[in-house]
């Protein structure tokens, strides 16, 4: 469980970026942290693995206060995938890139080899095992960066803007993969502006604005609340907007994804027949 109490954070010589966040993310939850640019999303998740220590308040990961641990220890349980893969790739081959963190955490060489092979297979990267990560496309590099964190099997996984630079099919695969991870009992936290992606996944949404939590609840409720969305510089997903426009035909308002919309439309049409 990740828990923050009155969490405040300010970068040196700047105002508070986080202004008193109270948040509990339970084990196995799927959470999307959303909000306008500069709302404090990335700053918030950087406090989860101790990269940033609160200027006031506390952050506890599975009961451990992040002030009393190290980034290396916390990272074993909290895997953070950064937005830009170019900020972390450095090895000669993809295989070596994936082995890097396992060596840091002191795994044995035979375990490293086994884990690397498994994760390459899982993320469809086996054919690139001996390639340099720098010659891969943007989407592939992003997958390598994700694999480089998943390889040590952290309990909580945080993905910062995972959909940026991904084409539609890759996004679909990513969504299925995230849902699978969550189904395996992992806590999955994503930071994103992509309302369409979130509408299809339907996680719990934590909405930030100017360093405060302004909304927290199921995706259907948050992505249908125009006031909240406006405050966080977001808009309804397209399906949500369409259903809202058709509400006077008797269609339900809080529908945000294609499959639920299809069901609702068919039900209404059948009723009318």
């Amino acid at each position, binding site marked *: 469980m990740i828990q923050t109490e009155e969490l405040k954070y300010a970068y040196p010589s700047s105002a508070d970026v986080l202004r008193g966040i109270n948040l509990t993310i339970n084990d196995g939850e799927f959470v999307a942290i959303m909000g306008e640019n500069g709302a404090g999303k990335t700053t918030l998740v*950087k406090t989860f693995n101790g990269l940033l220590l609160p200027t006031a308040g506390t952050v506890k990961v599975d009961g451990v206060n992040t002030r009393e641990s190290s980034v290396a220890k916390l*990272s074993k349980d909290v895997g*953070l995938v950064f937005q830009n893969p170019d900020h*972390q790739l450095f090895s000669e081959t993809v295989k070596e890139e994936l082995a*890097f*963190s396992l060596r840091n955490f002191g795994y044995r060489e035979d375990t490293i080899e086994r884990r690397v092979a498994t994760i390459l297979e899982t993320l469809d990267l086996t054919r690139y095992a001996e390639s340099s990560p720098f010659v891969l496309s943007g989407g592939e590099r992003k997958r390598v960066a994700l694999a480089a964190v998943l390889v040590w099997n952290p309990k909580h996984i945080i993905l910062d803007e995972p959909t940026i630079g991904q084409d539609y099919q890759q996004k679909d695969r990513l969504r299925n993969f995230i849902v699978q991870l969550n189904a395996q009992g992992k806590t999955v936290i994503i930071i994103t502006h992509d309302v369409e992606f979130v509408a299809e996944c339907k996680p719990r949404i934590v909405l930030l604005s100017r360093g405060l939590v302004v909304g927290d609840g199921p995706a259907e409720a948050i992505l249908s609340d125009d006031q909240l969305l406006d405050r966080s510089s977001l808009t309804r997903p397209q399906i949500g907007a369409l259903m809202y426009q058709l509400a006077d035909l008797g269609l339900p308002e809080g529908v945000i994804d294609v499959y639920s919309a299809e069901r609702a439309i068919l039900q209404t049409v059948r009723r009318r027949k």
Partner: protein
Amino acid sequence: MSLKVFDGFKFAKLPTPIHMMDPRAKFIMTIGIFSAALLFSNIYALIVIFLVQLPIVYAARTWKKWAGSMRAGVFLAVLIFVMNFVFGSTFVFSAAMTLRFVSLMSAFSIFFMTTSPDDLGLALEQARVPYTLSFTFTTAVRLVPTMALDAQTVIDAQRSRGLELDRGNLMKRIRNYIPILIPLIVSAIRRSIELAEALESRGFGASPNRQPLIVLRMKTTDYLVVALTFLMIGFAVYVYLRVPLPTPDIAITMPKIFPWL
């Protein structure tokens, strides 16, 4: 790893006489301090050269940032002292070399903290430096804070993968920086290629005869600063050639580790 050193080279606009000086006058002043610091290896002279800069820092109202950049340079300063001392120099000479480094760092820190990249570019252009060169130079200066931010993100990303920069012996600690340096260099190259393409797409270099909108003009105070700098250099050369400077009588040396040196 402290990236505060970059703050000490970052320009911030302030209404101070130092900020408002002509960049060419400031550059000549910096080069004056630079030359004087290189001329002397006597500790008293270097103490004076360092102290001369303090009123300038005070007038520029940049104490905090200047102190930050000095603190960030402590590691290199200690390294210079230790290397000199270990390889047979006296305690006083090692301290003088350290002070020379601190004075040079301070002079350039003051220059970059008080001179905007735009003014620097204008000064270079008016000194007939080709525009592509002056643009490259000012862009490099302007990108220093961005590179510092990138470096911090790379450090965060690698620490999140279990990298502990301060772990292990000296060689291991140096090797620990490879995962930081490679992504930083790669992203700098990628950024430079993207920047070059974006500039060319926006017609960079299309017109060979550029007409600057703003023309820098030296004021009386700027001429005074330049004159004072030349006087100071002349005085320094005179002292160097004609005045025998005392040396403190502290005869501490390391036993010779490498006798052949």
